[in-house]
C-alpha cells in the first residue's frame, strides 16, 4: 500500500481537532504509535509511519526519533521505502548528526543502481545534505555520471557537482572538463545544469573563469539558436524558447564579460539581438530582457548598447506589471551615478512613478528623482517633489523633506526661491522634518539678510495657517509687521501643544521686545520640559543683568 492512505487518515484526525490542545493530543498519540512501530523489527507499514512523521514535523512537532528510521528505509530494497527514507533524510538530517554518516554507504550504492530513479534519489540527497567527506568520497562517481548516463541523470549530476564544489572548493578542477563537454548536449535540462555548474566554477576560481572564456562562441551559438530559431513546441513558453535557459546563459555571459574587453566585444552583437528580438509583451520575455539589460550594464559594453539597455528600463517603467516597474526602478537607481545622462532621458517617466500606487515603487522613484535633480531642471523637479511631499505616505515624508532640502541647497537658483522652498516644506511636512536640519535652516535664513523682512512676513503667514515645527527665527528686523502681532503668534506657538520643545526654544532665542519677553519667559521658568525651563531661567537672568546686550544675545 502506498504511504498515502494511512497518512491521510492521520491528517483527517488532526484536522478534526477543534482546539490547539486537542490537536497536540492527537499528534502525541500518533507519535507514540509511530515510535512503537519504529522499534519493531519488521513491519509492513514502515513507509506510512515515516510519511506521517514528516507531516507532524512540518506542523512543528519534534521528529528526531525518526532519524534512524530514515537510515533503515534508505537501505531497503523497496523503491517506495527508499523514496520516503531519502525524503526524511533531507528533512530531518544534516551533516552534523551522526545518523547522516550512516547513509553514506547507501548513497554510494544507490548512485550505481540499475534503476535511474533510485540513482536520482541518491543524487538529490547528496546535493542537499552531502558533507565534505561524502562529497570527496563520491566526487569521482559524480564525474562518471556527468559523462556517461542519460539526460535525466546528467542534469541531476550537474547540480550535485555544484554542491560538491561548494563544499570542497578544490574539486572544481575535477568537474571543469565534464562541464565543458556538457555544453554540446541537446537536452535543455542538461544544458541548464551545465551552465549552473560552469557559473559556480567560474565564480570560485579566476583561472577557471579565464579558461571558460574560450567557450564563449559555443554559448553565443546556443543563445542564437534559442532566440532566432523558429518555433520549437518542446521548449516554447508563450512564444519564447526556454526563457529559463536564456536567463541562465545571460548570467554566465555577464560573469565572463565583466571587466574583460575581449569577451564583452564578442557578445555585443548577440546582446543587441536578444534585446531587440525578444517579445516584451509577455512576462517571460521581460525576464529575458531584464537579464540582458543587467548583463549589458555589468560588462564593458559599447555606449550604444548601454543606451539601448537603459531605454529598455525606461520602457519597463511604463509597464502595467508592478513587478517590472519595481525592478526597473531598482536597476536605474544602481546606474544613476555611472550612466547619469542616459537615465536623465527618462526623468519624466520616473517622476510620474512618484504617483504609483505601490509604496516601494514610490520610494524608489523618490530616491531616483532626488538623484536626478540638477541645476538645469531644479525648478521643474522641485515643483513635482513638493507636490509629491504633500500627498506622500507618512513613512517617506522625512526622507523626502531632507532630500528636498539637500537638493535645494545644492541647486537653488536664487535665495528667495530657496527660502520659499524651505517654507513650503515646513508648512507641508513640518512635523516630519528631522530636528537636526532645523538649525541649518535657521542659519540660512539668518544669512540671507536682505530677505529678512520677506522671510518674517512669510513665516508670520505660515504661523497663522499652520502651527507645527515652523522654525521661528530671525525676528530682529521687523518692519512691516508689528512686533506685537508676531509675538502674539509666537505666544500661540509656545502655548500650542503641537509644537515641539525645539520650536519653543527657538522662539525664545529671538524675542526682542523686553516686557513681552520677560512675561513669556517667566511662565516657562516653571515649564515641565527641562530644556525650556533651563533656557527660560537663563534668559531671565540674562535680561536682568545685561539689558543692553540683549539684542546681540537674541541672535
Amino acid at each position, binding site marked *: 500500500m502506498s504511504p498515502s492512505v494511512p497518512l491521510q487518515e492521520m491528517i483527517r484526525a488532526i484536522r478534526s481537532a477543534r482546539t490547539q490542545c486537542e490537536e497536540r493530543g492527537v499528534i502525541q498519540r500518533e507519535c507514540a504509535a509511530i515510535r512503537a512501530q519504529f522499534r519493531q523489527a519488521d513491519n509492513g507499514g514502515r513507509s506510512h509511519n515515516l510519511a506521517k512523521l514528516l507531516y507532524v514535523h512540518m506542523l512543528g512537532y519534534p521528529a528526531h526519533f525518526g532519524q534512524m528510521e530514515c537510515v533503515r528505509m534508505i537501505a531497503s530494497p523497496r523503491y517506495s521505502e527508499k523514496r520516503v527514507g531519502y525524503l526524511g533524510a533531507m528533512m530531518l538530517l544534516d551533516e552534523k548528526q551522526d545518523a547522516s554518516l550512516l547513509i553514506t554507504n547507501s548513497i554510494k550504492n544507490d548512485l550505481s543502481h540499475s534503476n535511474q530513479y533510485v540513482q536520482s534519489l541518491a543524487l538529490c540527497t547528496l546535493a542537499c545534505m552531502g558533507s565534505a567527506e561524502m562529497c570527496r568520497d563520491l566526487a569521482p562517481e559524480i564525474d562518471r555520471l556527468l559523462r556517461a548516463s542519460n539526460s535525466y541523470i546528467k542534469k541531476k549530476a550537474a547540480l550535485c557537482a555544484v554542491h560538491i564544489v561548494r563544499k570542497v572548493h578544490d574539486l572544481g578542477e575535477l568537474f571543469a572538463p565534464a562541464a565543458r563537454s556538457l555544453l554540446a548536449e541537446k537536452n535543455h535540462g542538461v544544458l*541548464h545544469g551545465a551552465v549552473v555548474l560552469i557559473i559556480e566554477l567560474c565564480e570560485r576560481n579566476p583561472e577557471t573563469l579565464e579558461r571558460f572564456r574560450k567557450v564563449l562562441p559555443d554559448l553565443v551559438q546556443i543563445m542564437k539558436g534559442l532566440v532566432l530559431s523558429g518555433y520549437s513546441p518542446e521548449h516554447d513558453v508563450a512564444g519564447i524558447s526556454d526563457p529559463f535557459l536564456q536567463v541562465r546563459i545571460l548570467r554566465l555571459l555577464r560573469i565572463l564579460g565583466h571587466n574583460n574587453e575581449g569577451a564583452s566585444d564578442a557578445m555585443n552583437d548577440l546582446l543587441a539581438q536578444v534585446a531587440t528580438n525578444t517579445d516584451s509583451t509577455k512576462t517571460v520575455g521581460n525576464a529575458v530582457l531584464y537579464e540582458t539589460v543587467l548583463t549589458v550594464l555589468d560588462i564593458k559594453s559599447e555606449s550604444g548598447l548601454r543606451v539601448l539597455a537603459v531605454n529598455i528600463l525606461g520602457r519597463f517603467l511604463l509597464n502595467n506589471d508592478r*513587478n517590472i516597474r519595481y525592478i526597473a526602478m531598482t536597476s536605474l537607481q544602481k546606474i544613476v551615478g555611472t550612466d547619469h545622462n542616459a537615465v536623465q532621458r527618462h526623468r519624466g517617466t520616473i517622476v510620474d512613478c512618484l504617483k504609483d500606487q505601490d509604496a516601494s515603487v514610490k520610494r524608489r522613484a523618490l530616491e531616483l528623482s532626488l538623484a536626478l535633480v540638477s541645476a538645469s531642471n531644479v525648478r521643474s523637479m522641485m515643483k513635482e517633489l513638493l507636490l509629491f511631499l504633500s500627498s506622500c505616505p507618512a513613512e517617506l515624508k522625512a526622507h523626502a523633506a531632507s532630500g528636498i532640502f539637500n537638493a535645494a541647497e545644492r541647486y537653488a537658483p536664487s535665495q528667495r526661491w530657496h527660502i520659499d522652498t524651505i517654507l513650503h516644506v515646513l508648512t507641508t511636512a513640518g512635523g516630519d522634518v528631522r530636528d537636526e536640519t532645523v538649525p541649518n535652516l535657521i542659519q540660512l535664513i539668518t544669512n540671507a539678510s536682505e530677505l529678512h523682512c520677506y522671510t518674517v512676513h512669510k513665516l508670520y503667514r505660515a504661523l497663522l495657517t499652520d502651527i507645527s515645527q515652523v522654525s521661528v527665527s530671525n525676528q530682529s528686523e521687523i518692519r512691516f509687521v508689528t512686533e506685537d502681532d508676531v509675538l502674539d503668534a509666537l505666544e500661540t506657538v509656545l502655548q500650542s501643544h503641537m509644537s515641539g520643545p525645539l520650536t519653543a526654544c527657538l522662539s525664545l532665542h529671538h524675542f526682542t521686545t523686553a516686557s513681552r519677553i520677560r512675561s513669556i519667559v517667566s511662565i516657562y521658568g516653571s515649564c515641565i520640559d527641562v530644556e525650556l525651563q533651563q533656557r527660560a531661567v537663563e534668559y531671565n537672568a540674562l535680561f536682568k543683568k545685561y539689558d543692553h546686550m540683549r539684542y546681540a544675545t537674541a541672535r
Partner: protein
Amino acid sequence: MIKAILIFNNHGKPRLIRFYQYFAEDMQQQIIRETFHLVSKRDDNVCNFLEGGSLIGGSDYKLIYRHYATLYFVFCVDSSESELGILDLIQVFVETLDKCFENVCELDLIFHMDKVHYILQEVVMGGMVLETNMNEIVAQVEVQNRMEKSESHMERMLLRRHLEPLSPHSHELG
C-alpha cells in the same frame, strides 16, 4: 540559490516547507511565522518582492512570492537567481501541481504532502533550479508514481499467492 520554499495558507498554516539549508526545528517554525507575518500584510497591488526577514539570512536574500486564492507560495532566494525568473518558476510549479492533481486545491496539498514533495524534487534540487519544462516534470513524476504502484501491486500479488491454499496443481505456479 534558493534557501527555502514555503507554502502556507492565509492563516499561516504550513502546507509545504522545504529548507535547503539546515535550520533547527524551532528555528524553522520561527522563520515560517516571520515570513507569514511579512507576506500576509502586503496589499494585493504591490510588487511580489520583499527584503527577506532577519531570521532567514542576510541582506542578500529576498522573498519572492505569489498569492493564489488561499495559498501563499514563497521562495526565499539570493541574488544569483533572477527575480522575474523565480516568479515564472513559481507559476511553472503551480501549473505542474495543477496537472498532477487535476485542478489542484489546498486540500490536495494537505492530504498529499509527500507527493507534493516528490513533484517539487523534480523542479528544484539542492536549492538549485533543476527542470523548468512542465511536461518533462509531469512525465517523470508519473513514471515514479507508477513504479511505486506496481511495486506494491507486485507485493500484494506475491503475498496472495503465498497465502493461497495448496492445490494439486500448485507446483505449476512455481
